[in-house]
């Protein structure tokens, strides 16, 4: 059995009277990709913030590599909002993680530049965030998360603001990166197709408070390749997820 990277055990979280998450358990094995799917406002971002060590749960516990998670900064985390710093040019936003870890900015910029074309950001490295489109800002936020250098990534709707074509392209990129570097992924998404394409397992959450409503193993070959999207088997898996969501 592959060792566990991240484990949430009976986690609960309330904001005042509002219970956002209740008795939620999930397990993420090393190298695994799990998608969290659920209605808006059900508590997905809250689950991710707890898993990132940014929010302390009221109940239950979080284990990282078998040890209780005590501090943030141990996992890659892409928040739902892009949170680019308005006073930093794009390239300097991208290198925020390495810079905070003590990498000389010039070297970090060099690394970031190589990935600009892939993320559709070439030619914009000296632009201010306010000069970027919403989709560009989101791609920049993903690239910033990737460049922080963790091999476990918590992604909160990483492609939510993108047009369909760019979105598929970046799904392909993420799927390939995962194969190449053995990344462990926990991805929040609103899209059943995206969940099926990116994940080995899909965890469907109930409306608030978030509780596991269905766990679906995605029975598709890896690596995921674009041709898979046209495969009837892909549609079948999407159908299973839609059924779990009560949409068929």
């Amino acid at each position: 059995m592959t060792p566990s990277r991240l484990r949430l055990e009976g986690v609960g979280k309330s904001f005042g009277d509002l219970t956002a998450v209740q008795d939620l358990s999930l397990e993420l094995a090393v190298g695994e990709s799990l998608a969290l799917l659920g209605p808006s406002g059900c508590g997905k971002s809250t689950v991710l913030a707890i898993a990132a060590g940014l929010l302390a749960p009221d109940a239950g516990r979080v284990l990282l590599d078998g040890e209780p998670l005590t501090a943030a900064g141990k996992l890659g985390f892409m928040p739902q909002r892009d949170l680019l710093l308005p006073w930093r040019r794009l390239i300097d936003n991208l290198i925020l993680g390495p810079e905070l870890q003590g990498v000389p900015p010039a070297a970090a910029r060099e690394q970031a530049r190589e990935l600009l074309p892939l993320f559709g950001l070439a030619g914009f490295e000296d632009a201010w965030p306010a000069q970027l489109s919403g989709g560009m800002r989101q791609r920049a936020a993903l690239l910033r998360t990737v460049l922080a250098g963790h091999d476990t990534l918590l992604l909160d709707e990483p492609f939510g603001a993108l047009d369909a074509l760019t979105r598929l392209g970046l799904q392909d990129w993420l799927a390939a990166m995962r194969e190449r570097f053995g990344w462990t992924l926990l991805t929040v998404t609103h899209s059943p197709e995206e969940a099926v394409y990116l994940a080995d397992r899909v965890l469907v959450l109930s409306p608030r408070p978030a509780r596991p409503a269905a766990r679906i193993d995605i029975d598709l070959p890896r690596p995921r390749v674009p041709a898979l999207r046209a495969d009837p088997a892909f549609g079948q898996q999407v159908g299973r997820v839609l059924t779990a969501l009560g949409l068929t």
Partner: protein
Amino acid sequence: MSGPPGTPHPPFGVAFVFSGTGLGQAPLRMPGANDRCTGAIAMPPSPSARRAAVSAALPPVIAVLALVALWSLLAAGQPPIVLPGPVRVLQAAIASWSSLRPAIAVTLLETALGLALALALAVPLAMALAGLPPLRRALQPLLVASQTVQVLAVAPLLVMWFGFGLTPKVLVVALACFFPLAISLADGLAGVDRAYLDLFASLGARPPQTWRLLRLPAALPAFFSGLKIAVTYGIVSATIGEWVGGSQGLGLYMLRSRNALRIDQVFAGMLVTTLLSMALYGAAVAAERRAMPWRRAS
């Protein structure tokens, strides 16, 4: 902005993986964004830009001219000892320039020193207030109280304690400027969006890094709104300090002029005070624009 060649190998040599997905979009060039960094010679303003500048400057110019016209009208029926007209005030300023000029220098020096003192006290205090919420709760009422203290009442006391020299005026200016600086900066530092603090935590930032790279730059807009208010208080506070106990400066110039019933010179002193305050405000705006170039981008 470009790094030197020969920097370490990238962690993700990914480019080849995707050389066929069609994802790499044609590099779109954004006019302006990069050109600014190339040091290209600035183009002369286009006719439309000039027209925009003119139409932006027009309303305030009209307002000032209307005010001067109203002033002339009101002054026309009055003896100059009651209300001198604009021309007469201007003549008085030129005639007494030899005493006005050193007065301006003194008042400016007092204002600059007072502002510097206020800044030197306000910045660390604001950081302490923002970093330690209990301290903020403890000191906020005292800070508000410090603002409600009447400069006019305190100034003579300061003169009594510190003599007729520079010190009491500098202290009056500092007292007036301190509050807007400290409160606005503390608000800016404490008001940083939780989500950004979480982002920094998730990137493993240590507290000094979060201060330097997040809190301080995020508080710049609030700091400059405080600074713009503070500088408008500065000159006026210095002249009040001089008025109640000074041996030089614009306040004393106005006091002496009033005692000599040279009301035209009193007006000249007021005019100069106003112009200096506006110049300081303009300098604060210019510093603000310089410190936050990204604001011009949007």
